[in-house]
């Protein structure tokens, strides 16, 4: 049995799962300290099944850390070492950052010798004295977090590792983020993602320690895992080092949960919450990754993020009956106080759904005298907005199955344009916690190969093997390894055949 918990902005959802069965689900308000909400949920589950169960693992998905980035609060000062000289000096670290964010994080940046060319040749040799000098400087300034980014490190990570070893020897207290472990090819975007990660390490360490303590107080001795943006999990120590991998785990868990509960591996998932709708696409059971850069808190990054489109449309979105518009304002979790059906005076999309007879919640008499034509028009507008998102995510004209999850799924009646079928699930309201509970271990590799040195088939085999090794190292059971993504992208404007290969494998957690 496993426990999955999703800490959302409004609710903390938890499920107890055995194989394919949801044994129990709990919904509690999210608390500002995160942990009380988690404890409340665990309490409920323990009460439901006291000592009758054997919990193998607890998986928690929380996007809480993104708030630190958005509010520019609790961020650690981080220094940056870029290994690049004499190349790549024109655009210094954080060159395209908003000023307030730069000021919230800024440590010093150091451009030093090292780095590689696209074909693995060294740009220059690492200068050990230089590294020692810089480390001592960082140590003296008492900066606790450091990013090491080397040119083409996603292809050749040796320089980053070498420098990390030197730094660790001189100043073991410094927390190091290696850029190649965070982002893809694209020096600035990878560096940006790594800096965000480094700035969150202290806060994440504190948060995870608090969660661990809370769980152990409840007498659960099951190991704690944290959900990642790509739908796989990481152990709590790893998560404390790579917090940036948690900040989009919410939408991903909803999609993974939808896949699991519906049994579908390829579908579009529409998650309608209280204030917003997220739409993503499942490919082989996992969310499709965003292929272009992703903007986080005003900063361009390129790490593994689900390709999710969001609009301000939810069960609490306000409706303007004269202008016939929806949102973007929402009353969110005050829905049960302020909306018409719950005795308030604000017209929301939920009131429209009740007026249209889609759902019987609250007091339907309160919406009896709404103008029928208006109700109809708003209903169509809601559908149009969702259909438009579905269409933007698709890659072909073919219809695809659409799975509705989240509390706001009541807003949608009947079929949707572009959908081959619309699937509603029994546990749609806790799909995200289910998604957390079922997470597997993942391993991903992205590499550039020149086909003059290796043939295509061998290059693919090599990349897949490397991903498999990663999975086993991260605690995956070798017998359950499954290849979920394999992509080759030829590079343009290069003579000879140069290709980029991406491989991703997953495996069940090896339970010791």
């Amino acid at each position: 049995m496993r426990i999955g918990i999703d800490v959302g902005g409004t609710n903390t959802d938890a499920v107890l799962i055995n194989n394919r069965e949801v044994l129990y689900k709990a919904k509690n308000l999210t608390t500002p300290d995160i942990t009380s909400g988690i404890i409340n949920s665990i309490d409920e589950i323990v009460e439901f099944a006291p000592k009758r169960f054997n919990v193998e693992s607890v998986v928690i998905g929380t996007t809480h850390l993104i708030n630190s980035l958005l509010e520019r609060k609790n961020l650690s000062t981080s220094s940056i070492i870029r290994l690049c000289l004499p190349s790549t000096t024109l655009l210094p670290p954080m060159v395209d950052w908003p000023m307030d964010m730069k000021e919230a994080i800024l440590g010093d940046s150091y451009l030093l010798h090292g780095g590689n060319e696209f074909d693995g040749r060294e740009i220059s040799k690492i200068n050990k004295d230089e590294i020692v000098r810089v480390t001592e400087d960082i140590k003296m300034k008492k900066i606790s977090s450091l990013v090491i980014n080397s040119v083409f490190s996603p292809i050749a990570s040796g320089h980053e590792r070498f420098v990390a070893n030197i730094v660790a020897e001189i100043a073991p207290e410094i927390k190091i983020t290696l850029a190649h472990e965070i982002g893809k090819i694209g020096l600035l975007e990878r560096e940006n993602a790594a800096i965000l990660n480094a700035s969150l390490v202290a806060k994440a360490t504190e948060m995870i320690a608090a969660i661990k303590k809370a769980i152990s107080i409840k007498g659960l001795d099951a190991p704690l895992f944290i959900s990642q943006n790509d739908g796989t999990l990481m152990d709590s120590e790893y998560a404390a080092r790579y917090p940036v991998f948690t900040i989009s785990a919410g939408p991903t868990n909803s999609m993974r949960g939808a896949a699991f509960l519906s049994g579908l591996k390829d579908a579009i998932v529409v998650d309608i919450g209280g204030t917003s709708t997220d739409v993503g696409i499942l490919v082989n059971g996992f969310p499709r990754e965003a292929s272009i850069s992703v903007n986080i808190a005003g900063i361009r990054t390129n790490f593994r993020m689900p390709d999710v489109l969001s609009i301000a449309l939810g069960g609490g979105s306000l409706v303007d009956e004269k202008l016939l518009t929806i949102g973007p304002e929402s009353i969110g979790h005050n829905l049960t106080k302020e909306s018409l059906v719950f005795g308030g005076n604000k017209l929301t999309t939920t009131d429209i759904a009740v007026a249209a007879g889609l759902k019987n919640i609250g007091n339907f008499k309160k919406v009896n005298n709404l103008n029928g034509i208006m109700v109809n028009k708003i209903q169509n507008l809601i559908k149009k907005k969702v259909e438009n998102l579905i269409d933007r995510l698709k890659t072909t004209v073919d219809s695809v199955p659409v799975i509705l999850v989240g509390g706001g799924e009541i807003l949608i009646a009947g079929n949707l344009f572009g959908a081959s079928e619309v699937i509603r699930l029994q546990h749609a309201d806790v799909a995200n916690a289910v998604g957390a509970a079922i997470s597997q271990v993942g391993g991903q590799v992205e590499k550039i190969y020149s086909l003059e040195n290796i043939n295509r088939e061998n290059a693919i085999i090599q990349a897949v093997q490397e991903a498999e090794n990663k999975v086993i190292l991260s605690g995956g059971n070798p017998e359950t390894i499954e290849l979920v993504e394999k992509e080759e992208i030829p590079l343009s404007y290069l003579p000879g055949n140069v290709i980029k290969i991406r491989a991703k494998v997953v495996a069940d957690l090896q339970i010791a």
Partner: protein
Amino acid sequence: MWTIENDSIESISIGAGILGSGGGGNPYMGMLRAKEMIRKYGPVNVLSVNELSISDKIVCVGSIGAPTVGIEKIQGIESYYALRAIEKLLNFSATAVVSNEIGGSNSLEPIIPASISKIPIVDADGMGRAFPELQMKTFFVYGVPPVPMSIADDKGNVMIISQANDPKTVEDMARSITVQMGSVACYAFGPMDINQILNTAVLNTLTLSKNLGDIVRSSIKTNNNPIESILKVHSGKNLFEGKIVDLERKTIQGFTRGKVLIEGLSEYSGDRMEIEFQNENLIAKMNNTVVCLVPDLICIVDSEKGEPITTELLRYGFRVTVLGFPAPKHWTSEQGLKVVGPKAFGYDFDYSPLLFKELK
């Protein structure tokens, strides 16, 4: 004369994206680099050709290589190294620089040597759009020699091509040196004098790209129809409006080839347009009839915002408008078509100009 500042860099990169006809690469890095140079060295002046004097010595600079490498090993001041190498080799001082290609990120490259050397940029270029290869320049078609050409890398290494039998040979040699240099490099050749610029360059294209970018940005701000505004700034045709319903893209010998199928919306409802591309958009067919073809410009822009969409960014579901602009006259002559006409890209039919075609 006008001055390139931070704000004009944003506009130029949008306008140059439109003139790139689907090619020219992602201008983001070029934009950041140009801004950084201006922050360090101050604004750069742009001179129209009438403001040049008979003694001016103008060097053309450009960037060559793989965009995928350029986002990782970000270019620095290679084009300045290349300029210096040509000056030293031929023992002169350049009084201005000029862009080789207005389409895409190469439009901003001259800002780098111009800002360091404190010399102006001439309001012109050697393509009037984007093309994939070095020999495809109006300069060479009308007699400017491509050699000696200097090619510089990010470490300050320079190679000179001192002799080549034709411009295509220069392209082949430069391309393989570039790979050796880590797959991104910059080149320079010249100097040209005012007469060479007058007789061979496509004029006023930097101003054109700035004006296009300005109008797109102000249309977005004021919620005006960007398509009409674009056509007011640069005369061309609104060829089609619709939604991308199919996309085929593959890389053959280092070049991206493919086609995109667009299904008509609003006044084009029921019609289809197919555009074939090879880095740049080459040929547009409406309901199987050719309506615009290379070297005329076929530009795909976002229907709502008017922002250009390069061939690598095309995706199913985008709402796009296809604009056609007549090619600069340099390309529609017999010599021009030999280098960049339909046949140069492997089609077996002749060029016919855009504006004589009857559309819908």
